[in-house]
């Protein structure tokens, strides 16, 4: 077994972190709108958001490849802005990951917002709070578990992202060579020892992280057991 670079591991962690951060920012208003709106657009937009769950990742990756390319809408945009093409780059992977993990961020948040219901916001406004203030000081804390789920699911889902990366990544070390595709390459090349090493490491690491998060969540819940 030759020397294995851990660079794919760090790259995967970086990709998952950036994607999770971007998605939390994008999904919060989207999930809030989906939870509260009575517009007829609610159903179709909800379906669109769920679409990445239904499409096979390689298929999704293929269409993102076309979209990011010189003949696609995103490609036209990035080229017009002077950014060139985002395929085969880390930002391109972030875009792919955001689309791929979108339902995993939106749905837990939407569920949390729906279960909170309109009451807390109404009560807050009768007490004189402006909508934005009410959202941040009342809804967000109540939606804590929802944010927790969205964060964990999005992060984990992006770490495991494979089909999309295979389609738009190009396997460039330090840029798009993530751990999931690297393990697959080792398996295909029949370098099983290297594959076991990387896969085992990722498994152990992920398990520890998830365990830690679970325990933290339980302690958080316990602390907020009493409502002021």
């Amino acid at each position, binding site marked *: 077994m030759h020397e294995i670079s851990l660079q794919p591991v760090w790259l995967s962690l970086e990709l998952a972190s950036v994607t999770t951060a971007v998605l939390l920012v994008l999904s919060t208003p989207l999930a809030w709108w989906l939870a509260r709106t009575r517009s007829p657009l609610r159903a179709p937009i909800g379906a669109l958001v769920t679409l990445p769950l239904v499409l096979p990742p390689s298929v999704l990756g*293929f269409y993102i*490849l*076309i979209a*990011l*390319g*010189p*003949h*696609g809408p995103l490609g036209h945009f990035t080229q017009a802005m002077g950014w*060139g*093409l985002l*395929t*085969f780059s880390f930002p391109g992977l972030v875009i792919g990951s955001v689309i791929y993990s979108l339902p995993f961020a939106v749905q837990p948040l939407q569920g949390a917002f729906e279960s909170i219901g309109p009451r807390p916001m109404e009560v807050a406004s009768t007490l004189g709070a402006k909508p934005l203030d009410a959202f941040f000081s009342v809804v967000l804390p109540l939606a804590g578990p929802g944010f927790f789920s969205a964060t964990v699911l999005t992060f984990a889902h992006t770490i495991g992202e494979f089909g999309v990366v*295979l*389609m*738009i990544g*190009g*396997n*460039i070390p330090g840029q798009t060579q993530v751990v999931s*595709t690297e393990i*697959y*390459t080792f*398996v*295909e*090349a*029949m370098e099983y020892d290297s594959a076991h090493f990387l896969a085992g490491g990722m498994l152990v690491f992920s398990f520890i992280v998830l365990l830690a998060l679970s325990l933290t969540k339980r302690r958080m819940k316990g602390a907020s057991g009493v409502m002021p």
Partner: protein
Amino acid sequence: MIVKRSLIAAAVLSVCAGAVCAGEVHVAVAANFTAPAKDLAPIFLKKTGHSLILSFGATGMFYGQIKNGAEYDVLLAADAKTPAKAVKEGYGVEGTNFTYAMGKLVLWSADGAKVKDGAALLKSGSFNKCAVANPKLAPYGLAAYQTLESLKLLQAVQPKFVEGNNIGATFNFVKTGNADVGFVALSQVFKGGKIKSGSGWIVPADLYEPIRQDAVLLKNGRNAEAAKAFLEFLKGPEAAKVKQAYGYGN
């Protein structure tokens, strides 16, 4: 009506006692041979009555599956090494591996005006990315590396590499225009005797080790008779015609 149909079915089944009857051959086909394999299937069906169930993908992936019990009858590999290994490790039937096609490498671009003198283009570096298949996994990837080494351009071009894990993925990169150029299998862009779209430079054969694509009969297959018929068919004139039209040598 139901009784009549089941009588007919029983009659057909009883005639098909031996393996001589119309069978199915499960073939694992290397990604680069996708188009010719699809063309060969109806010709083979007409000639022998057997049908081909084709799976396309990376040779390495197929071998991994075969080692873990996959029931393919025949492996059409992208290299000669894997079928030889299959025989050595006991998955392939001794003496049945042979070269069914000689692969040809092409430097290709979806842009019809891009590639004229390939070597000059590679030297000039006037392309955003050069797509290659992973040399560890795909013989066409290895051939690409060998070509660039022969031209003494590997160091210059490598920073612009984007790697696909098989020749199909590599082709996608170039076809969609995300990579300006790429080293793909001639068969992917050749039809009816010429490059059907884009522009390409057929890499001179002396720049890379010959890509011998070997076939082998697999022990764990379900229909050895039909499989052997297929391997014979591959050596024949109808198959040679199809292969040539797709830019393979024999």
